[in-house]
């Protein structure tokens, strides 16, 4: 390959470079002027976190904890009613919620945390759990049986007990929670709380009837699309 003789002149490369920059000086620019012009987001973009609503405007989330279990950095956290009308605790990073913020500050400063919010979670004697786990050889493969035995002992599944199981067997809390919430015969609340939940669930048909009536009155009898 023969060398272009012009290239042998010292400084010619710099001159070419400067010619190139001068040409670019007049070319259209690549900047997107952000607040006025917004780059189009591809349809598959998944940087936007949102919960899905169904066509009636209620959340589709069933608090099944599947996403929390799958989340690699454990940032997902939730709370609410599941399909059976039971209230589920939320459980996540301590800093996530306002009500835990003070506790967090205490913790960072090295003082003991009074922790009233968790008294009814922690206020169980977990010695029994240890015995149960000993019986199952600390093997998370027998998780369902462990949970059943725990419920048989306490009458329900206290959070403290679940945490103990998680701690000892090394299983993720979300996994234990997912298992426990999957089976209808396992419950997280003492029977008293269950009654409240049942009462709350019993209110639901009345609310639905009210909403239906509202919809009918709004549509003015013109159609039945509500």
């Amino acid at each position, binding site marked *: 390959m023969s060398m272009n003789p012009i290239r042998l002149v010292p400084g010619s490369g710099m001159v070419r470079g400067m010619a190139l920059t001068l040409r670019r000086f007049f070319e259209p620019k690549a900047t997107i002027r952000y607040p006025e012009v917004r780059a189009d987001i591809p349809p598959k973009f998944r940087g936007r976190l949102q919960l899905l609503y169904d066509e009636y405007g209620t959340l589709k989330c069933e608090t099944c904890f599947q996403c929390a279990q799958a989340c690699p950095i454990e940032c997902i956290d939730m709370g609410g009613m599941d399909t059976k009308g039971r209230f589920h605790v939320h459980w996540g990073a*301590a800093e996530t919620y306002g009500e835990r913020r003070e506790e967090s500050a205490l913790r960072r400063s090295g003082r003991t945390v009074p922790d009233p919010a968790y008294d009814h979670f922690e206020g169980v004697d977990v010695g029994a759990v240890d015995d149960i786990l000993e019986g199952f050889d600390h093997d998370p493969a027998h998780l369902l049986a462990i949970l059943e035995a725990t419920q048989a002992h306490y009458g329900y599944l206290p959070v403290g007990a679940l945490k103990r199981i998680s701690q000892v067997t090394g299983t*993720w*809390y979300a996994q234990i929670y997912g298992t426990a919430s999957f089976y209808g015969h396992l419950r997280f609340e003492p029977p008293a709380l269950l009654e409240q939940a049942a009462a709350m669930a019993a209110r639901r048909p009345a609310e639905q009837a009210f909403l239906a009536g509202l919809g009918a009155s709004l549509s003015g009898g013109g159609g039945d699309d509500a």
Partner: protein
Amino acid sequence: MDRAFRARLESRFGDVATEPIRQRHDETELRIPAAAAPDVLRALHDEPEFRFLMLSDLAGVDTGEQMQVVYHLWSETTSDWLRVVAEGIARDEPRTPSITFLWKGAEWMEREAYDMFWIVFEGNRDLRRIYMPPDYTSFPLRKDFFLPDDAARSPGGGVRPMERSHAPQGTSAGAIRRVKA
């Protein structure tokens, strides 16, 4: 799987190997005692039938029962990755010879293994901590490492198994993960 290569390995290193040579997919595994690693690796590097000039990777492994240093080598003479597992390093006081005399580039990888597993490579002239600060005292990738984090003392403790500050009580047998692989 390169059967001929396996035969060559068998005939050359059969007496040093602690276990029969295994092959799976495109990997050939040779297990040797850690003390023999410099000689074996030097032979693999220099002898014309092997010519393993490239050290692809050096990894420390804590199996829960012993420490291992795993070398992955590449050569033109075979189509397999050669995995040399230098095993039998005591967990209490892991010491093994360094191979920086063969590959100077192993220096940082050995430092990393030291940093993470407390495996002391004798002969590495710069065996310092590499990732963790110099005043750090524990070895994070060991299986008996539990994170002494404030998260472990919080009500959320136990939600993440790795944030335990210590092995759970009453579980001496199941305290750490082990592998027989």
